[in-house]
């Protein structure tokens, strides 16, 4: 499971960074979104990957180690919300830039005439 997750995050970040460096604003925003997916997966996995661990909601007798770590879950929720909000805001700026400059280059002007 660790390997699959690591490969997934690696692919997401690699595609995200490549897109982030592209000249079109839409590519940039998709790149940012992909990176934020990878980061969210990463935060989620730092508590240690386990299958079948109980959430802290259930009363399970015995060791505290039987529970899944709740803190990364709380962190990832916050990160998702904030990431979503900032991406939405970026989208608005992107549209404004498109409207004001008439093209979708990140610098507001195309190199090619």
């Amino acid at each position, binding site marked *: 499971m660790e390997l699959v997750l690591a490969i997934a995050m690696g692919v997401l970040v690699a595609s995200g960074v490549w897109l982030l460096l592209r000249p079109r604003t839409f590519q940039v925003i998709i790149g940012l979104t992909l990176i934020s997916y990878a980061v969210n997966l990463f935060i989620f996995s730092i508590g240690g990957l386990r299958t079948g661990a109980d959430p802290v909601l259930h009363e399970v007798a015995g060791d505290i180690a039987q529970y899944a770590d709740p803190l990364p879950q709380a962190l990832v929720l916050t*990160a998702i919300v904030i990431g979503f909000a900032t991406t939405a805001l970026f989208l608005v700026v992107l549209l404004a830039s498109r409207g*004001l400059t008439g093209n979708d280059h990140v610098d507001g002007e195309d190199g090619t005439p």
Partner: protein
Amino acid sequence: MSIHLIIAPIVLPLLVAALQLVIGERRRRTVATLSVVSCIALVGVAVALLLAASQQGDGAAMTAVYRLGDWPARFGIVLVLDRLSALMLLLTAVLALAVLPYALAPWRHRGGHFQPLSQFLLMGLNGAFLTGDLFNLFVFFEVLLAASYGLALHGSGPRRVSAGLHYIAVNLTASMLFLIGVSLIFGVTGTLNMAALAELIPRVPARTRALLHAGAALLGVAFLVKAAMWPLGFWLPRTYAASTPAVAAMFALMTKVGIYVLLRLSLLLFGDGAGPASSHFGSGWMLWGGVATVAAGIVGLLGARDLGKLAGYNVAISAGTLLGAIALHQAAVTAGALAYLVISTLGIGAFFLVAGLLASDGDEDTDDTLSLEPYDPGGVDSRSDALFAAEDESRVVLSAPVAILGVCFFACAILLAGLPPLSGFLAKFAMLAPMLDAPQPGARVLFTLIVVAGFCTVIALCRAGIQIFWAEPERTFAQVRVGEIGSVLLLLGLCLLLTVMVEAPLHYLGDAARQIHAPASYIHDVLPAAQVAP
């Protein structure tokens, strides 16, 4: 002092901003009154907190801890007030109050929701200064960044939207690095409380120490983007030059947030007590990064052809200076650096406002910053049309704006260059004198570069001043409203006041520096004594 006063700098702007959003843009007078009340109250609260923080320390410095939800620090989230955070709170509140008259004066030309956004910015800034927890730091950073995105775009126009697009993209990427760094640190240590981290770091096994360092380095890169260290700070001059003057003046504080966090974390987590493997981790990078930032700032400053960029490169130079100074890990240098931080923030804020006044021509949609002549001798003055502005009859007009603006410009130049009569010199001297005793080889390089940067600031600002005030006698200046010039005079007056009364502030800053250089008391105060770490 009631302990609940500590959370007031966060709750008050939040409530005021929410109220202003509900009231709506049309009732400008109510919204403006609310902002004024909020800013004055924030200054009052900050002064009270500053006094409380300075009283606590006789010998063993105390740190006030506010436990949110009353959970003990290892489980719950804490706000921590020590001398450094109280100082930053006061600086934020004073800058916000001083900029407010400027922001209120020309409201006719501005876009919407300036006041609520700036209150949210204050909330984020205050929260970032107070928090004692890395993840909360992320949340407050996002709050202040989200507000700053709105403010950077304030007034709209292609130039601002284009600069804002870059600013947002860079900062979103930096936030991702922030999150990766935070989660790596959490993965290694299992806590995000700064005091608990400081306690755990000496005991991290060698096997995972590299991961911890990688996390801290990623976190550091995220802050260095905010602090505009050289290869990471290309967004800064353009964004600052493109924003409206009042916003840019508030943004003068934004790079200082990055500096503040780096100062706090590097001393708390990687100070002398962090064990041989981790102590002073990253300080070499910060020192040479600071040197590179100052050098790049000098080049930019000498090449800048408009006042906004000139001020932007001044921000970069002051960030680089601070970065290098705090990397030396010397209490005396840090005390001087804090003085320099205060003076340079106020000075650069005033300079942005003056630059805005010199260029303001009533038409906010066009280029706000005044561009200077290009170097080719036969250059045609292309911008003169923009400077001859239609006058608005209803403004309250001062009789001699040119003289006042000239004096303000001159005062800003002296402050930023650090020349003798004003407090800029005192702050720079307090920082540079102990720097020569630092053992690091880079300290001399930094010292030399800071002095050179002072000279280059004089050259660049003299050239700009001569072109603006002397070279073209027929140039007319836009008229100045009382509120706008009031802001500038308030900021410069504060710097003047700090020139006259030096003793008490410097004493306080020395105490603050000693306090953050002895993190043991911070850790002891934040973590409940009964609990021993596993």
